[in-house]
């Protein structure tokens, strides 16, 4: 997605040569999505988060672990841009440092979900009805179970380890990947050119690789974005509950949790990590939504809004009465 942003959108180049008011029925390509303001903002936010993940505490203005007993509960100010916490530590630095752990474990969960979900999702279309039935039922069942209980149960069994808990989360994200990939694969595997390829003797694996995978990838990308958002929330939640937190190492949820203990002294405090979580999650969701909207069918475009409006009214009146008569007189 980011690489294609560099190239000038082909739609832009070509339009000048074409005349206006030509009905275009091609679905809009992802490149034009980048013009949406929401997508641009989302990408900027995510880029910032990515940088923080990569370089983490190196970029922080101060040491996230330094305790300063003289500067407890300070509000946002010149020295500490987002204030200090109950031990006098700089909140901004802690948040920046905590990004790495939160994001990486979230990605770990998404990765597991992707592999466990998308692969069977594509395969199920080609592996026969039994497999499909069983896979679907397992998916239904997994989707109804609350992930938090399993994540916590896993820590009960394996010890207080965030990575392990996120494996449980990843397993419970898999059904979503499965559903989406299965639907997308079904849609494309039944296309006529796939039938033609089969008739020409192509093996199933070849068909999958060459024809289907390319079409299915956008859907997977969209789901990955939403699932990453969900995984981030899960990480925040788990660290909030105290799972996998080795104090004094900062995590988003952990900061939120300790803010809660000192609410009366600093009622504004939880809003900061809360906002950070919300913004990141929102950016991911916005991205997912934008791509999802664009990859559905394209729209018929005519130049004249009046004509379009009248066509619309007329056709809604006619279709309202199920009128299929042509324009000729009876």
């Amino acid at each position, binding site marked *: 997605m980011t690489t294609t942003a560099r190239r000038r959108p082909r739609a832009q180049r070509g339009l000048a040569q074409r005349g206006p008011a030509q009905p275009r029925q091609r679905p809009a390509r992802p490149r034009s999505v980048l013009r949406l303001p929401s997508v641009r903002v989302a990408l900027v936010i995510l880029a910032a988060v990515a940088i923080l993940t990569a370089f983490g505490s190196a970029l922080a203005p101060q040491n996230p672990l330094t305790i300063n007993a003289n500067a407890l509960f300070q509000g946002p100010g010149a020295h500490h841009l987002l204030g200090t916490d109950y031990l006098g530590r700089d909140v901004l630095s802690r948040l920046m440092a905590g990004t790495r752990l939160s994001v990486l474990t979230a990605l770990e969960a998404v990765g597991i979900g992707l592999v466990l979900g998308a692969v069977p999702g594509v395969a199920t279309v080609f592996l026969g009805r039994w497999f499909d039935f069983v896979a679907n039922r397992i998916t*239904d069942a997994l989707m*109804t179970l609350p992930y938090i209980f399993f994540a916590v149960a896993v820590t*009960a069994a394996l010890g207080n380890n965030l990575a392990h808990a996120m494996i449980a989360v990843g397993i419970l994200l898999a059904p979503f990947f499965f559903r989406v990939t299965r639907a997308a694969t079904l849609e494309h595997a039944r296309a006529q050119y796939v039938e033609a390829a089969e008739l020409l003797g192509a093996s199933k694996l070849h068909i999958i690789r060459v024809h289907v995978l390319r079409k299915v990838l956008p859907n997977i990308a969209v789901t990955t974005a939403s699932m990453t958002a969900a995984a981030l929330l899960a990480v925040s939640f788990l660290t909030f509950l*105290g799972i996998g937190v080795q104090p004094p190492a900062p995590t988003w949820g952990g900061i939120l949790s300790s803010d809660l203990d000192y609410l009366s002294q600093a*009622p504004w405090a939880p809003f900061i990590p*809360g906002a950070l979580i919300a913004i990141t999650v*929102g950016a991911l*969701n916005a991205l997912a939504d934008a791509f999802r909207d664009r990859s559905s069918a394209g729209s018929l475009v005519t130049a004249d809004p009046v004509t379009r409006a009248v066509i619309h009214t007329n056709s809604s009146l006619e279709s*309202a009465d199920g009128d299929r008569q042509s324009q000729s007189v009876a």
Partner: protein
Amino acid sequence: MAVIGLTRSGGTAAAAAPALHRRNRGRIALARLGGGLAVLVPIVFLSTFITYGLGALSNSDPAATILGQDAATPAAVARLNRALGLDHPLVVQYWNWLTQALHGNLGRSWFTQIPVSQSVSQRLPVDLSIAILAVVLAVIIGGTTGTVAAIRRGGWFDRGLTLACSAVSTLPAFVVGIILVVLFAVTVHLFPANGYVGPTTSIPQWLRYIILPALALAVQVSADIARQLRTSLVTVLDQNYIVGAKVRGLPYRRILVRHALRNAAGPALTILGNDFPQMLAGAVALEVVFSLPGLGQLLLESAQTRDIPVVQGLLLVTSTFVIVINLVINTTLNWLYRTDDGIGT
């Protein structure tokens, strides 16, 4: 869904063709119920077994922990293990546990010796109160806002609602809970920030303690319901049968409730069923935020001490709960929106 898009089925079902009898429909519903159970129950047992297995595979040694470092001689440990039933092979242990569980005996905590079922039944009412109140609130808030937005579509309320829903959807329940605590408990002292009083003690007090957590839980679900209801209702209101009802001279309110909402509510209610697991998850977090003595706290504590029987029991209880609720909701919806060919929404 199916209800909204229904049109005449091409004149196939003339009066002469025998319509599917109502008793048959009941049978089909029952079959689907059975099918749902048959699939979900193994998953529940599978998950509890995995937890058990993981516990065994891990290097936790409850006997040693119980006895304490000094008293944990090999002989004492072996004796305790036998007492706790930990010396049998894993599958046997699990089977014993399972059979006992079906009789209602979920074992005892390794550390406190309190029967798990007792701990659970003590704490269950807390979560239930919050969850039920949350559902009620969600339906009321989500239902009214969604309806108003649909009736005045395109207006300021509608647009505001869309914005609010998008904003809310990024906020996990515990964050909302924290916000509510800050707003209504810390700064304003309207409601208590933590603690719990049962309904048997005093109903007004009980409500005071659960209203904030219930509200926190309800916010996201309300947003989902409102958004879905608005969309469905807008579609339904555009349908011809609403015009048909209008030209019959039926009052607007009646059309709205008995024709439009009746058909549009289905998908929104399904959302309730789907969101329920998330509500459970949120309840756990909220117990931490509001210091409520519920199942979530129990889970966290026993997870920390690695008290497997308690965790197992909780897992079983919550999973069963979720399954039952889901089945109840799905069956109700299928019954409410039955069409003649027996295919539900």
